[in-house]
């Protein structure tokens, strides 16, 4: 673990403070963009002549689906960085992203069902997109369950990173196979994107909403990574200093400086 200070930028101590400064901005951006997106989805976008008002669900469904996939990619990216450069912060970011990604996957499934009932007449249709999204949900759950089952943080970090990478290699194969399966069985071929002719205002609404979800996801992940840093580094001196208290002169307390790596906590 020598040479960790080369990656000063990725030191949890520095990042903890930086993230704390950034979080309010991301929440503010999410709120503003969310308000603008909701305004577009309910007031600017006209009623669809085929689906009526039910189609407004896609303003939350499509951005949630986009972001659920994007977050999985980001998670795998952090996991790869962690495995390649052995930076603990990368692993922590991967763990911090997973619950938000799983939540958005669930949102996309839930809203997909609520959109499907009035549009297809069924709560659940084995459409290629919905099915892939369901499998993505399982991938998120597997990642979180694996990390939760391992007590040693170092092993949990690396095992989670590996399964995230294996998952990301599989996602395109899974999507392709599900699509193939869906077309062969002539299942629901109506997809969200082909249903109404995509008006510019709709696309704009979905993009603004997607940005809002993106900002929210960053804010939530940063908040979570700060919790993870505190939980894991509670024995290090910088945490004690930051909280404005002199550390207890306990023989077990490690005496590293700011940003050093404390293994095996």
């Amino acid at each position, binding site marked *: 673990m020598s040479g960790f200070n080369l990656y000063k930028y990725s030191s949890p101590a520095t990042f903890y403070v930086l993230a704390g400064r950034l979080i309010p901005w991301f929440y503010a951006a999410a709120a503003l963009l969310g308000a603008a997106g909701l305004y577009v989805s309910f007031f600017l976008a006209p009623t669809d002549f085929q689906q009526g008002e039910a189609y407004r669900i896609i303003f939350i469904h499509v951005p949630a689906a986009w972001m659920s996939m994007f977050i999985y990619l980001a998670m795998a990216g952090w996991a790869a960085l962690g495995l390649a450069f052995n930076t603990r912060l990368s692993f922590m970011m991967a763990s911090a992203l997973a619950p938000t990604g799983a939540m958005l996957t669930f949102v996309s499934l839930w809203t997909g069902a609520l959109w499907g009932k009035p549009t297809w007449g069924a709560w659940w249709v084995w459409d290629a997109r919905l099915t892939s999204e369901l499998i993505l949900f399982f991938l998120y759950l597997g990642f979180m369950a694996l990390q939760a089952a391992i007590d040693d943080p170092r092993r949990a970090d690396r095992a989670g990173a*590996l399964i995230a990478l294996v998952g990301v290699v599989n996602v395109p194969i899974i999507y392709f196979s599900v699509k*193939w399966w869906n077309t062969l069985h002539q299942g629901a071929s109506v997809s969200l994107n082909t249903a109404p002719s995509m008006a510019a205002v709709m696309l704009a609404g979905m993009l603004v909403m997607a940005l809002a979800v993106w900002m929210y996801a960053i804010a939530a992940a940063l908040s979570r990574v700060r919790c993870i840093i505190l939980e894991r580094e509670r024995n290090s001196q910088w945490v004690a200093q930051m909280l404005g208290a002199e550390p207890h002169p306990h023989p077990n307390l490690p005496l590293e400086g700011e940003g050093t790596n404390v293994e095996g906590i």
Partner: protein
Amino acid sequence: MNAISALLRRELTLAMRRRGDALTALFFFVIVASLFPLGVGPDPKLLHLMGGGVVWVAALLAAMLSLGRLFAADHADGTLEQLILTPTSPVVWIAGKILAHWLVSGVPLILMAPVLGIQFGLSGAELAVLMWSLLLGTPALSLIGAIGAALTLGLRGGGVLVSLLVLPLYVPVLIFGAGAVDGAISGLGSEAHLSLLGGILILAFMLTPWAVAAALRISIE
């Protein structure tokens, strides 16, 4: 090459000593597939349509059931740590171990599959496609499953966890495997499915041993 054949021999000898485990997974396969007609009713037409999918899902679950013993015994007695230290590349002996595991747990499933297929009224040609699809698919299941087995080594609740990790990754194999049989039944042909299954097998064979090696290092150190 000598080391590999020695390893294979060792794995097979060990597996033969623990015949009971492989037999349990095989009976599980038979029982799961036999439960379906009891659940959905004896309509021959429906059963014929479902047959390929049911046998494939049962094979998937049986393959998963036997993953636990892929590395567990070697982990418990410390052999695994020795193997990681050997001069042979870990990828080679990992591939050997998976091959041995497949010979013991996958091949019996392929041989048993026609018996189950007959229960669902599959014809001779359809049974042949079912066996071909399992021949191409079950090694891929062993390869992909080995990653899950390596990552959950020694964890409490490892068995349930491995299913959560591995089953979503099994989806493409299931789709193309069961799809091949469906193609034979509907007369659309099953060559495309079998080729894709072969593609998955080749990809899995090239990539998974590396992932398993990394997973074992993570789990052991």
